[in-house]
């Protein structure tokens, strides 16, 4: 009985995660991911349209 109480107490302690908070790290990761995807998309799009323009001019 005592062991069961100890076990349920331990489970309750870890119910919402041993690491509390940490939203700053989470938002940093999502922000970096979105920014990287956006910047790489823009970079590829700009390089592609520059290439298209050059090839049209050379024709």
């Amino acid at each position, binding site marked *: 009985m005592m062991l069961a109480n100890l076990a349920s107490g331990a489970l309750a302690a870890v119910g919402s995660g041993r690491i509390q908070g*940490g939203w700053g790290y989470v938002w940093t990761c999502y922000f970096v991911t979105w920014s990287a995807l956006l910047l790489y*998309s823009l970079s590829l799009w700009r390089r592609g349209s520059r290439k298209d323009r050059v090839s049209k001019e050379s024709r």
Partner: protein
Amino acid sequence: MPHWLPFPPLLATVVLVALGILKPSLRPTLWRLLAVAAPLALCFGAFLGLRWAPPDREMGDVQRIMYVHVPAVWMTLLALTLNFGCSITYLMKGGWGADALGEASAAVGVFFGTVGVFLGAVWGRPTWGVYWTWDPRLTTAAIALVVYTGYLALRRFVDDPDRRAVWSAVVGIVAFADIPIIWYSVRWWRSLHQVQSTPKTVDPEMTLSLRWNSAAFLLFLVAFLWRRYRLAMAERQAELAPPPAPALEVSR
């Protein structure tokens, strides 16, 4: 939320790629579709990862980083495996398409790899207490990034297209040896990095969020590969085009 939810975008990606290969006339429409679908899928993925998925029992809300870190690493492994396939294809059959796709996959793989390693480092700070440690998984991932950056540098240094294609194909095959080591490093060595989870060991809501985000990243991977492949092909065509004829001088 239904657990089959991530499969329609995955299936759509496969259909999109197949249509793009088989019907070149549809490519502009498919490209526009991809440009709209990928950001929308990412936004819904962010909702699933940040709001809908439950916090982890041990890591709490910090575990939500998994929904961007793991897909980024998976896309890296996919892109670099494609690079390996292109390298073998070029050495066996030749063709500038394989060489251009090899270059595109390495560049996109390094991009996703850099994002994945950065996100892993940020995740490491609250869970391990450090941003970086020379753990086997982290070390082999860092080696892959350095090697494939070298692959891209090699392509810039060699001017002759034929020699460049052969050399980079050889480097692509040798560099791929690190990819299975990255995957199995957490099983082969006592590692600080956790072993891969399976759908049986995690909450189904976590599995759904991870699969959806992976599908969204896959859409980005296809879009980036396609765009980068076109750039590489345009460069090859410019290099291989005959030089313009010199202007004739009119003799007087």
